[in-house]
């Protein structure tokens, strides 16, 4: 018997419901507004009154409207067919919705329950299994989508029967499991899971020890992110957060990309809808859309669903991780999610924390970031969810609550700088303020030195040092004037500029420059560092700047050319000629 209730109060999308039975915190209910069902979530209970946040507009709602509680929390449906889909924040398939405008209560199925999948069993009857063990697989795009023992199964089970290879619908029973008490459980190809709970059906979650290649030089070379790691990108508007996120989505070396467009612009999502089906994955040659799932709650969609959208995305990520895949989850932006929490907390008349955000903001964010990670599955395979979120700090001030809370939770920090953006030095990641904690992990250092080159980590540290010294020299030049400082300062400044122009800056809109594989990054960094180690002879500082500009120009032309092509080597030769002009032997 489901708990029933009726509406007794309405303040915007916070609705008070008087209930006739038990209700749970975060339980889902439907408000029946003249035949249209509006989904809502319980966020507070006082006596017989449940306070629910409605995931829709409450226009026209009246006191006395009936409400039905569902007895479960907000859940997602997990099964074959999630890839390449475009969902709203509550996992309703946007493609199945009718009309141009989003109508309230138009809740569509997440999966296609009519289509058939080519199932191949992976276990024999009699096998012992636990939650998340693979029972079989179906091909989904290019992924071998594993059909698993549902995560909600907490016991140990024996496979009693499993269907033979063939075509089945997602709702067909494919296996029967027997638990330790001898009870039978039917397993289909889909399962449900509450989004706010982490899926922990794996053996072990070690410290990340590999890096995730992104093709973005300022990330991979200077502050790499680990596979299964966490990072965040704060920055004022107009600094290229979204361009950077899209670059990551296009190029990152992951099996699956989940983009959670959380309270951001609709046109940015449309860009993905439009481009990804045509763009090639640089590694596999398949279309990018084949490995992408989009969870989309744009800024004009209902606020309450915004909070849900990041959890929906994370849960889908964890699901694919359990299949042994490398998942990259991108959320743009987590500040909007925090703001959604703030709006609700405000309506609940809770005492506010800093900047009117709820007091538990920091805990909520830390908890979410902790769901990412590299894991060993029960069967020895590995999988990972790497999470990169953007933060939109109010007024570009990094001392605001969302940035500060995220800084405590995420291991990589990619600070976008207004100054760099203003001078069009994109991606505007500040090389000094940003950091990757992973670079300090011995296991990551070992990995880099083994897989890129022997002295890679020390080379990277050295390049950072040159940038730092260049910046100091620049400040001195600005204070004392061009001729008020030794020539050496100019030399130092320009060497840092080479690294800036050739390694840090990258043209996201150029076909070649947008994506730099690791071997090319190694080649270019080594080249640049050789130049930085070379002494040149100058008679005055004017010579210095014009000479280095020529070097930068030649190196930039190399960046724009196909790697190791004839053109590339021609520019390299040109560079050698320039270098020989002033090289001190």
């Amino acid at each position, binding site marked *: 018997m489901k708990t029933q209730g009726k509406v*007794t*109060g*309405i*303040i*915007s999308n916070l609705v008070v419901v008087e209930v006739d039975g038990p209700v749970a915190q975060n339980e889902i209910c439907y408000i029946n507004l003249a035949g249209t069902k509006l989904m809502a979530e319980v966020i507070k209970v006082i006596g017989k009154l449940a306070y629910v946040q409605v995931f829709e507009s*409450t*226009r*026209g709602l*009246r*006191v006395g409207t009936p409400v039905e509680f569902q007895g479960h929390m907000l859940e997602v449906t997990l099964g074959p067919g999630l890839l390449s889909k*475009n969902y709203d924040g509550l996992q309703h398939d*946007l*493609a199945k919705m009718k*009309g*141009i*405008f*989003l109508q309230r209560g138009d809740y569509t199925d997440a999966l296609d329950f009519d289509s058939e999948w080519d199932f191949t069993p992976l276990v024999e009857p009699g096998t012992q299994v636990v939650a998340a063990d693979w029972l079989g697989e179906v091909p989904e795009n290019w992924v071998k989508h594993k059909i698993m023992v549902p995560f909600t199964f907490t016991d140990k089970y024996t496979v009693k029967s499993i269907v033979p290879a063939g075509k089945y619908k997602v709702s067909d029973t494919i296996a029967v499991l027997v638990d330790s008490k001898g009870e039978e459980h039917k397993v289909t190809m889909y399962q449900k899971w509450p989004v706010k709970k982490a899926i922990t059906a794996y053996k072990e979650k070690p410290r990340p020890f590999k890096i995730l290649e992104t093709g973005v030089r300022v990330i991979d070379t200077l502050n790499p992110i680990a596979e299964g790691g966490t990072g965040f990108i704060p920055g004022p*508007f*107009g600094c290229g957060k979204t361009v950077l996120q899209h670059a990551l989505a296009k190029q990152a070396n992951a099996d699956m990309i989940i983009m959670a467009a959380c*309270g951001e*612009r*609709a*046109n940015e*999502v*449309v860009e993905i*809808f*439009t481009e990804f089906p045509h763009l090639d994955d640089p590694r596999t040659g398949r279309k990018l859309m084949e490995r992408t799932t989009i969870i*989309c709650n*744009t*800024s*004009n969609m209902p*606020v309450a669903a915004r909070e849900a959208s990041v959890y929906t995305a994370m849960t889908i990520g964890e699901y694919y991780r359990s299949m042994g895949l490398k998942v990259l989850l991108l959320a743009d932006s987590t500040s*909007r999610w925090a*703001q959604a929490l*703030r*709006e609700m907390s*405000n309506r609940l008349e809770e005492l*506010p924390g800093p*900047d*009117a955000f709820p007091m538990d903001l920091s805990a909520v964010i830390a908890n979410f970031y902790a769901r990412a990670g590299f894991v060993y599955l029960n069967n020895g395979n590995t999988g990972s969810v790497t999470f990169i979120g953007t933060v*939109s700090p*109010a*007024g*570009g*001030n990094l001392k605001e609550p969302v940035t500060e809370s995220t800084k405590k939770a995420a291991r990589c920090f990619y600070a976008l700088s207004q100054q760099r953006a*203003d*001078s*069009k030095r994109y991606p505007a990641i500040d090389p000094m303020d940003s950091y990757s904690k992973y670079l300090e992990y011995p296991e990551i250092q070992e990995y880099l030195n083994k897989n890129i080159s022997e002295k890679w980590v020390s080379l990277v540290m050295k390049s950072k040092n040159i940038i730092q010294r260049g910046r100091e020299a620049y400040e001195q030049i*600005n204070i004392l*004037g*061009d001729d008020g400082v030794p020539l050496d300062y100019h030399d130092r400044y320009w060497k840092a500029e080479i690294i800036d122009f050739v390694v840090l800056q990258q043209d996201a*809109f150029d076909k070649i420059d947008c994506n730099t594989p690791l071997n090319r990054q190694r080649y270019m960094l080594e080249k640049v560092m050789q130049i930085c180690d070379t002494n040149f002879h100058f008679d005055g500082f*004017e010579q210095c*700047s014009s000479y280095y*500009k*020529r070097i930068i*120009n030649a190196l*930039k*032309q190399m960046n*724009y050319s196909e790697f190791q092509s004839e053109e590339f080597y021609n520019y390299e030769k040109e560079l050698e000629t320039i270098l020989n002009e002033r090289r001190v032997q």
Partner: protein
Amino acid sequence: METKAFQRIYTQLTGITKATVSLRAQGVANEELAMVHGRLAQVVKIMGDMVTLQVFSGTEGIPTNAEVVFFGEPPKLKVSDDLAGRFFDAYGRPMFGDSEIEGEPREIGGPSVNPLRRKQPSELIATGIAGIDLNNTLVTGQKIPFFADPDQPFNQVMAMVALRAQADKIILGGMGLSNDDFLFFKNVFENAGALDRIISFVNTTEQPPVERLLVPDMALTAAEYFAVEKKEKVLVLLTDMTLYADALSIVSNRMDQIPSKDSMPGSLYSDLAKIYEKAVQFPDGGSITIIAVTTLSGGDITHAIPDNTGYITEGQLFLRTDSDTGKVIVDPFRSLSRLKQLVIGKKTREDHPQVMNAAVRLYADAANAKTKLENGFDLTEYDERALKFARDYSEKLLAIDVNVEVDTMLNTAWQLFAKYFSKTEVAIKNELVEKYWPAN
């Protein structure tokens, strides 16, 4: 809004604040309209049988025994082709004693477009202003505000952009518009002979501030009618959104909500996004483009209103008076059109992106040189050239009184490059330099 037969009339208010009244009433729907003492009001809160109404024109003089009549429906606008060429107040009522228009009533502030049913904007809007067309190209379906101090000629620039933009309909949403500015818009549109393409919803400074909250929704409901049903290219002008946000904060304050940054309501981002996100390109040709004005105080963009706006809109245009040339320019450093990547080099000449970036970079070099000069340092020969370039660039391209085609802008930029710099200093891809570098 007429009253209908058999409506219950309530005559006992239990509470009155500066902007709201409350009373006991039953069967009332959220967000429905009511008439309180002859003034329009909207339901904003219901608790049991206690209903709180926001009275748009303020509560001055409303007695506790005022008559309250509920209409049973949210605010609506009658839409039809008759809208064109007319002026309306914030409630959608014709101004200047015009007759009511015939049309189908539509709820304002309706649902948003399914993102999957949108099309990627791809049509350039040419304005003839290089600070916009060259550096910050506008695209149909875009939403972009002017960030300007109150003393800058933003309304003039906006009117100019509107008239050159070749839209099928131009809808003006004026919030807290001074009467002088309102008459300015009216005259400019009339003189351009464009009045039949123009629809205005205006709340002037003489009218109550809370009424402003209706203006953007009214304007955008009309815009959706023409863009969806008539498949027209609609340009919506909203000025000034800062005054709109101020009205939001007045209401939230009166409703005892906890303010967040800069005493703005915590929901400011969502409130503004609901308006701006109505900008859309439909697959069948209709589009809504929004150009707004957000006035700043002392150029401070970290204030909650411009800050939240910047995160919602697809860029922003900064106006600034260039002290070297004395002309108003579109600031190349702080302005940005996010959608320009969709058209530059695709709908315009291939060299557009690189020319744009190179020119801005060189202009930045000039700005550095200027700082040096101000600090009393000697300039290098390069600095001198950069400064001369900056002056020409500002006068021949950035100034808002320049009105030329995009190709001409590009050619002018190449000429300026060749005049002041060497090819390596400009640092553009070689193949483009070979093709476009002026021969002499």
